[in-house]
């Protein structure tokens, strides 16, 4: 009997919990290691910078100094900037960025869908669009400052131009790539031309359009900041320019830190929007993003 019992015991696999626990422990250990190394990396770069500038290997007057950057940010927060309170500068730049982004995306999608659906129009306008796209569009900023003045419009216009082309090309391609079977099926099911656009072509092109939103948001920010460089009375771009004019390297870096923070927060918002808009897609690419 005991022999049989032994055999049965062996035949029944041991609870697999131990395996699972080991795997979970390994995953946890890896996660901790990654976080620790991230901190180490940060400390090494920033600490090294601080150290080298203190012992004189790097001249903090030209290249800044982390403690100086922190001090500058604290000064801006507590005493405001040369152009007014810090939050006002951030708000101005953000407003220009978001406005430029929204208008650029809207125009890009509309033109992309219209030209994507109308082969004839696309053939006629194709060379001009390519030519316009080949111009380094940042130089248009000068025109906008001359034409639209130092206010918000010139920055928004520059951001719109930068965003438009990215979104336009993606929307255009997205419309061209719509599965012909889906179009045929929709037509058989009774879709009108407008329904074909709103119910089939745009949802299908949305994958392409949304992929362009990440890039185009950073371009909107570039447009706003460069526009402020070129001539403005407010904004983070102006803060950078002022700092540059007074040889305040820490000021330039501090403005960069603020910009990066803003950009990362907005990036997270765009990702959230993306996840909301395309719930139907299998989650295969989510792991690739850093």
């Amino acid at each position, binding site marked *: 009997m005991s022999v049989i019992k032994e055999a049965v015991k062996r035949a029944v696999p041991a609870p697999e919990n131990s395996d699972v626990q080991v795997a979970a422990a390994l995953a946890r250990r890896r996660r901790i290691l990654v976080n620790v190394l991230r901190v180490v990396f940060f400390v090494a770069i920033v600490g090294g910078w601080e150290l080298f500038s203190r012992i004189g290997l790097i001249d903090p007057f030209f290249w800044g100094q982390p403690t100086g950057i922190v001090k500058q940010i604290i000064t801006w927060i507590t005493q405001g900037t040369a152009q007014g309170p810090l939050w006002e500068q951030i708000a101005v730049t953000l407003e220009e960025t978001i406005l430029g982004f929204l208008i650029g995306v809207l125009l890009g999608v509309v033109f992309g869908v219209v030209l994507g659906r109308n082969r004839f129009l696309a053939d006629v306008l194709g060379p001009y669009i390519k030519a316009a796209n080949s111009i380094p569009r940042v130089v248009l900023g000068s025109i906008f400052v001359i034409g639209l003045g130092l206010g918000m419009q010139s920055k928004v216009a520059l951001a719109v131009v930068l965003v438009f082309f990215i979104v336009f090309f993606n929307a255009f391609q997205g419309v061209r790539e719509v599965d012909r079977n889906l179009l045929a099926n*929709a037509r058989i*099911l*009774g879709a009108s031309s407008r329904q074909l656009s709103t119910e089939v072509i745009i949802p299908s092109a949305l994958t392409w359009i949304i992929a362009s939103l990440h890039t185009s948001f950073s371009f909107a920010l570039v447009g706003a900041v460069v526009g402020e460089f070129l001539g403005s009375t407010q904004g983070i771009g102006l803060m950078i320019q002022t700092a540059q004019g007074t040889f305040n390297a820490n000021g330039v870096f501090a403005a960069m830190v603020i910009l990066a923070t803003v950009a990362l927060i907005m990036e997270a918002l765009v990702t959230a929007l993306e996840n909301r808009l395309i719930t139907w897609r299998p989650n295969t690419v989510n792991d690739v993003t850093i």
Partner: protein
Amino acid sequence: MKDSSTIVPAVPDQATAAIELRNVTKRFMTPAGQAYTALRDLSMSVAPGEFCAVVGPTGCGKSTTLGLISGLERPSVGEVQVMGKAVQGIDPRIGYVFQSDAIFPWKNVLRNVATGPLFRGRPKAEALEHAHDWIARVGLTGFEDRYPHQLSGGMRKRVALAQTFINEPQILLMDEPFSALDVQTRTLMEDELLNMWSSISASVVFVTHDLEEAISLADRVFVLTAGPATVKGIYTIDLPRPRNVAEIRFEPRFVQLYQEIWEDLRDEVLISYERNKRSS
């Protein structure tokens, strides 16, 4: 055309035909700028409520006939009539089940099935309720919220069938709808199709390259020649209904019909095969 007792005239009754193609030729322009003839002088006629299968070698132009009947394509020469009227654009009485997945990946099952009624301007609540009925009829209750990528191939096909049947088409065009499914699923789907068809009594044109499938489903089988396609023979399938698709294949009459039609089809398959070999 072959002289055989099973052959009936191509145009059985002019007045009552649900679908009629008269001496239709269809040419396409290839990307290289050459004309390619898919159909040549093809005539066929389908009676109301009749289930017709169209068989022929791969790539012979079977699907093109469906494109012409549906109004998605226009004939180069000849005339296509549906319910006695020349086809002009897409007729709302027609349903079309495509070979590959054509359900919308961004809509869940419920929305996919409700697409037709919504496109046709039915109130939303009514369309969704109707969609629930059809989802139940194809056995997908409980999956209303799923998206197509979360379903198996067979389930996606059921969604496609419900999406088509909900519009109560009087003419049902099917382009190798089950060719991507595994054999067991396929037999089940064929049975379900026959059940659904008997409840709506539409005229069906079912394109397939599978002769067994054609005989087990259809009232009549059209054999097309290797491209450019024209009708080579028409066979009446006198097997009784209702049929059990899984078992009908063992009946002596089925085997006899199969042999008879295969005689006709074999030469065309060989021609098509030789041609493909040479061109590749």
